[in-house]
């Protein structure tokens, strides 16, 4: 009896050691390198932590180059862009800055570019209307913040919203460093007693939905117009002025890539690591 037990325990012990050691031994033999399994993971980690590395290019990324010089030269062009966009997308006008819904709007230089000052700068810069909108970031913080995946990055690199899913938590608004998201505190479809719409004095575009109370909204880079082969409405509103250039910034042959390659441009708040896709020629 005793001998049998001793023998059993010996075999069991050796088998256990062999069992634990075998995968390591196999991987060492197969890869011919002792550190093979840990090496890949370590390499990836260093790559990620290196903030100065070239940004990885994955798929399409539509973006804009906004030539602020043109907007300084042509009075009213920025307002024309805003009007075209807001009419196209049924952006309500609540007539109150606290409730304001903004898809594309103008800011002053020092407000648009955080950390940049207009102190002692030329007058032209101080009066320059900077057209700002959603930056359709390559690394969008709003998408990470959204608990329902109502906002997401689509295959064209557009930060899109599915208004059906939005629960109005406004995490995305807190996450966005550009203030590009607005919340509907009121029902945009509210009417006067005579049935006239309160917040759409010029009527609504029947091709596009409105929003409802309690959802966040933002620029969608005219995803539908792009799908139909048209330019975004702000770009179209600029006409031949080339005030805004639209295109795939990941396609090296696109017009926008050529402009970016040959012209000095800046982005809004790039230090947040959002990798904005809207560039500015100042």
């Amino acid at each position, binding site marked *: 009896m005793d001998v049998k037990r001793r023998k059993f325990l010996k075999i069991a012990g050796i088998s256990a050691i062999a069992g634990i050691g075998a995968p390591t031994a196999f991987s060492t033999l197969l890869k011919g390198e002792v550190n093979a399994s840990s090496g890949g993971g370590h390499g990836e980690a260093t790559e990620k932590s290196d903030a100065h590395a070239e940004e990885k290019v994955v798929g399409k990324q539509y973006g804009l180059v906004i030539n602020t010089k043109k907007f300084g030269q042509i009075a009213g062009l920025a307002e024309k862009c805003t009007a075209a966009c807001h009419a196209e997308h049924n952006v309500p006008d609540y007539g109150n800055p606290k409730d304001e819904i903004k898809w594309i709007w103008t800011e002053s230089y020092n407000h648009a570019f955080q950390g940049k000052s207009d102190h002692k700068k030329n007058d032209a810069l101080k009066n320059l209307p900077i057209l700002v909108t959603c930056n359709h970031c390559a690394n969008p913080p709003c998408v990470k913040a959204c608990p329902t995946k109502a906002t997401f990055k*689509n*295959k064209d690199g557009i930060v899109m919203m*599915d208004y059906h899913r939005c629960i109005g938590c406004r995490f995305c608004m807190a996450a966005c460093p550009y203030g590009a998201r607005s919340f509907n505190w009121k029902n945009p*479809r509210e*009417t006067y007693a005579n049935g006239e719409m309160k917040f759409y004095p010029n009527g609504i575009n*029947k091709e596009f*939905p*409105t929003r*409802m109370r309690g959802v966040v909204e933002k620029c969608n880079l005219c995803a539908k117009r792009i*799908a139909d082969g048209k330019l975004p409405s702000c770009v179209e509103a600029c006409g031949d002025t080339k005030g805004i250039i639209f295109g795939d910034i990941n396609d090296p042959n696109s017009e926008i890539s050529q402009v970016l390659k040959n012209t000095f441009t800046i982005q809004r708040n790039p230090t947040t690591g959002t990798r904005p896709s809207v560039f500015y020629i100042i």
Partner: protein
Amino acid sequence: MMYDSGKIITGLVIFVIMITFPIWYNVGGAEQLPKVEKPVGKKECVQDTQFMRTSHMALLNNWRDEVVRSGERQYQVVEGVKYEKSLQNGCMNCHTSKAKFCDECHTYAAVKPYCWDCHVQPKEIN
């Protein structure tokens, strides 16, 4: 022998009358079945009538996900005519009246879909 049989039987009768109240109250007063207005000159929809009757809401949800999330906006072709995968720009091209088409059944079935909180109906804008 039954004590207080009068009271008990009366009580029972009242109880039965009350519990069957919904039945006899509605006798003969059944609602008319909804009559939806069908598009003139069109015979086919994107799916057959039975499917549309039971599952149009699922179809619309799928369309929304395909269009908004995956960017699959390919047209639906019915009887050689292209239609957008869209409620307000697709369906409502033929079904031109929300009141006479959508509401007719929805009211009968006491469902209140929230489509029109955001989407724009063809004529009667509210």
